[in-house]
């Protein structure tokens, strides 16, 4: 929370302006109603006309000032909110950046990023809904109470009691109540979401196994329980709001009764009674934002907790090692065993692969065999549980990750493209790339795009094959000496794949190249083929060696031949 305040406080000026205008708006509205009550009472006493004129003019003035300051308050506070959002994003990005991409491996759930974005957005409400409403409320109330002190200490005390009750006690009680209910709502919601997902994705199996009705009934039961829990939450909120309204009315009532009593015993001039009553009726409008205050407080507290726990990870100790050479280097896995966090079965078990500098290696195997895991380890996304990985003869544990990335051309199974243009997405491959170079590369991978063509979010306007070719174009432009390619052409047809691989091999002539593939075609030219199954290397050799040996690779090749196009 403290750190949140310090990020927020970067916008001091707007924050204090918001408070100032908020207080002004609150006070003028109290003044407006107080004055109108006073005016009516005064009018009865037949004052000179100019007094009425002055008071009417004042009324207009207060009215205008109230509306104006309310406008200014809203404007400034919202501007501040969005600026704070921007600061929050930048600040979290700066903290998250050094931790990536390893942190994505640790939180394997794909929604980590969406959650971060959501939580940051929740935090923007901290200022608007948590920080300044109580500040404004207290200042307005205390000023008003100070004013009423001149007329009656008792009435001032009653107002003070009202402030404590409506501004803090009742919302606080609600917050306490809701903590538990909200937990229940969340749990039921998660339950329902799982049921709906299972029903829809498992529809065919449910139907065929005649379990659909059973599932449907269960789903509806959980849906009802979820709604009931939500209802509990809403009813509590409604009760709290009504209670708050009742408290405000009671205060006005007590002010009236007390005032009336004081008037009858002569302690208060009757002239001011209407004014005091009007003030007590109006001032509680200012407490309205406090109804949502605890909920927002709780939300921000949780969001901040989650966010900071993610970015507070110790960044890995800085590694000093570098790969000295600028040309192709060798890669060697020695007895590597690796298990994904939270899994019991190892993804790799005693894997040894030797890839000499400048050689071309293919890693093949069925889905789930661990071939992509090898790739992730080479990119330093995870640390091995046992064994070592040597790059250019140096242990990977000592080499700067940035150094590895800068020396590799990586195409992943899923490649990210940024919202923008084709040019934007190619430009990240290197500084000083000319349009000509980029266009030539696009032609090389047979993409008919112009550099100004738009790329939508997640490249949803590109087909799978186009995305893969754009990713290949991007690494062709990067020209690093080591290539790590994870099924880079799975969505391309065989002929296009062949042509593009031709270009790749040409570009990587002197480079080290590791290709992960589940297709077994076009591997004849490789120096080495490594066959993996269930986290183990089952055999390795050249294409001809493996075909002659007639074991796993040969069998897989037979099946592939057997598969109809």
């Amino acid at each position, binding site marked *: 929370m403290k750190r949140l305040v310090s990020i927020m406080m970067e916008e001091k000026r707007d924050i204090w302006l918001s408070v100032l205008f908020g207080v002004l708006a609150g006070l003028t509205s109290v003044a407006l109603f107080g004055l109108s009550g006073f005016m009516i009472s005064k009018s009865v006493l037949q004052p000179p006309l100019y007094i009425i004129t002055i008071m009417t003019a004042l009324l207009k003035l207060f009215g205008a000032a109230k509306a104006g300051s309310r406008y200014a308050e809203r404007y400034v506070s919202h501007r501040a909110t969005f600026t704070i959002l*921007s600061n929050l994003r930048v600040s979290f990005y700066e903290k998250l950046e050094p931790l990536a991409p390893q942190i994505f491996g640790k939180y394997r759930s794909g929604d980590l990023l969406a959650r971060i974005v959501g939580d940051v957005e929740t935090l923007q409400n901290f200022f608007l809904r948590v920080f300044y409403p109580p500040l404004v409320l207290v200042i307005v109330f205390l000023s008003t109470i100070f004013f009423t002190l001149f007329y009656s200490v008792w009435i001032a005390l009653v107002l003070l009691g009202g402030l404590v009750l409506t501004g803090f006690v009742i919302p606080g009680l609600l917050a306490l109540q809701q903590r538990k209910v909200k937990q229940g709502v969340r749990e039921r919601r998660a339950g329902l979401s799982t049921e709906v997902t299972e029903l829809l994705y498992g529809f065919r199996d449910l139907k065929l196994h005649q379990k659909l009705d059973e599932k449907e009934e269960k789903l509806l039961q959980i849906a009802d329980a979820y709604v009931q829990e939500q209802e509990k939450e809403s009813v509590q909120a409604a009760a709290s709001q009504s209670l708050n309204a009742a408290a405000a009315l009671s205060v006005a009532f007590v002010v009236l009764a007390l005032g009336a009593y004081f008037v009858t015993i002569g302690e208060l001039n009757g002239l001011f009674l209407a004014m005091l009553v009007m003030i007590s009726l109006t001032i509680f409008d200012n407490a309205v934002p406090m109804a949502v205050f605890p909920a927002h407080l709780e939300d921000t507290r949780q969001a901040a907790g989650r966010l900071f726990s993610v970015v507070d990870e110790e960044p890995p100790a800085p590694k000093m090692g570098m790969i000295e050479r600028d040309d192709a280097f060798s890669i060697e896995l020695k007895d590597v065993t690796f298990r994904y966090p939270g899994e019991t079965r190892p993804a790799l078990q005693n894997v040894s692969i030797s890839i000499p500098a400048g050689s071309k290696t293919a890693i093949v195997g069925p889905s789930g065999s661990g071939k992509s895991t090898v790739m992730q380890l080479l990119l330093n996304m995870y640390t091995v549980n046992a064994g070592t990985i040597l790059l250019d003869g140096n242990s990977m544990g000592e080499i700067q990750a940035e150094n590895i990335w800068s020396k590799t051309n990586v195409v992943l199974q899923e490649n990210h493209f940024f919202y923008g243009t084709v040019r934007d997405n190619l430009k990240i491959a290197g500084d000083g790339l000319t349009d000509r170079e980029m266009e030539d590369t696009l032609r090389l991978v047979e993409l008919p795009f112009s550099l100004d063509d738009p790329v939508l979010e997640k490249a949803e306007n590109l087909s799978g094959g186009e995305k893969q070719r754009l990713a290949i174009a*991007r690494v062709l432009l990067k020209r690093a000496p080591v290539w790590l390619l994870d099924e880079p052409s799975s969505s391309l047809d065989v002929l296009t794949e062949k042509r593009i691989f031709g270009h790749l091999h040409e570009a990587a002539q002197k480079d080290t190249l590791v290709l992960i593939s589940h297709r077994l075609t076009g591997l004849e030219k490789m120096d080495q083929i490594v066959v993996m199954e269930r986290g183990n290397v089952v055999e390795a050799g050249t294409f001809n060696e493996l075909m002659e040996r007639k074991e796993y690779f040969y069998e897989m090749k037979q099946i592939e031949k057997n598969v109809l196009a």
Partner: protein
Amino acid sequence: MNELRKWASEQKGIMAALLGLSVLMGAVIVGQAYFLVNVVDRVFLQNQSFGAVVPMLGFLFGLMVIRAGITYANARLGVNMASKVKQRVRSILLQKWTQNPIQTAIQGQSGGKVTVMMEAVDGIDSYYREYMPQVMKASIVPLIVLAAVSYTHIWSGLIMMVTAPFIPLFYIIIGIKTQKKSEEQLDKLAAFSGQFLDTLQGLQTLKLFGRAGRQRDVIQKSSLGFREATMDILKIAFTSTLMLEFISTLSIGLIALEIGLRLVVFDSISFVSAFFVLVLAPEYYTALKELGAAFHTGRGSLGAAEKIKAELAADEQPVKWGDREVPARPSVELKNVHFQYGEGFSLKNVDVHIPSCARTAIVGATGSGKTTLLNVAAGLFDPQEGDVFIDGRPRASFSESSWFREVSYISQHPYLFSGTIEENIRLGAPGHPARAEVEAAAEKAGLTELIRELEDGLDTKVGESGRGLSGGEKQRVALARAFLKKPSFVLFDEPTTGLDLKTEQILQRSINELAQTASVMTVAHRLHTIQQADVIFLMNNGEVEAAGTHMELMKSSESYRAMVQGGAAG
């Protein structure tokens, strides 16, 4: 809006109660002002003793209690209505989906449907919980207040009547303007707001290309751009609220001036009436402003309602069933079958006969209708034209449960439900087979080794919340399901590639074993599968282009030959 209103009108009782409470609320507000004014009047002008106003204070207190009670009851009714509508909408949606057999074929869209069931349904909540009670209250209370004021002092009433229409009018103008403005800026806003997530998602790529450090400025720039674009829209909204404040303040000022003058100059109104009008005037304008604000609240639910409506509008073609029992090992025949859904799935003029215990294979290019044919044969879809016969009788005369008792369907991507491996194998097995039978089925499906490796064995949790199994392992669980069920009709969508050798071997062996006691219909991708088939149907563009054994088709069909040789050459 229409759907939302329709669901609201189904809750007649609650609507009536809301109406009644609003009328009562109006009366209470008027009564409260009346007693309040009179208490002040009596002690201030008439110099009565405190004791004399105690009864009035008592009434006043009573009214305030009632007012708080009505506020609560109103909110409570809104919550009730929201709950009832949400429950109802969820069950309508669910019914719609489960009755629509096409659901099996469009699992790709399931993610969107989950969102509709969760977010969209929750999104209509505020319409019933806040908007309906608010609108009801805000449209009735001003009328009652206006009547009370007009009765007391017609001139103030007239001012109220004249000024009132400006407020809703203003809201409408603002609504249109802000909507236009936000539509203009929509792309910009979406781009700006998505940038942060886009950058985070691309962080790995940025790192690999050594660009991550520079993105900080991009994020700042887009966030500030978002601020400017949003403030542009908000400014309109704030300015109009300012104007509304002016209108209501000026109107109240006008009323105050008018009664003030009458009180002082003309002496033509009593203090009680003047104060009464003055207390009620803000109630009147506040209620009107609430009405405008309520429309904004209601707007928020519109998008959600649209999404639900779109789901409900999809047409459904439920499969027809009867009550005859399906005999053991039936033959299945499709006669002149037509089927069309969207662009992807179509069948034209399909005639297929599958004798009892026969092995059939369906081959053809992607999109030729193979899987659709499998789904029609499985009883998941009904043909739009033509008929399906089981043992010579129309399928519609047999009972659904007796048919599915005889069927197993092994898809390319079997779904595992959250639960243990054993529960997943038991799914759909008739009766309650002993654990040993489950183990035997797992053994036949080649799962024994995997189960031995796992700490909890058959009781290991899989699915959503449990561990993930590889594609090959899921296939084997699906096989185990079939072994336990002992069906007489097996539908098999052969995987294309990506399976391990072991699963490949087990699949072949298992299908052979299942074929001993059942008809097997396979969407085939492997040469040996079609070589073993009694009859092969070559699909092209939704039609059966050729049928026969492998040998016959090699002789008679050129496209079959091309396909087989093309595959073998790869």
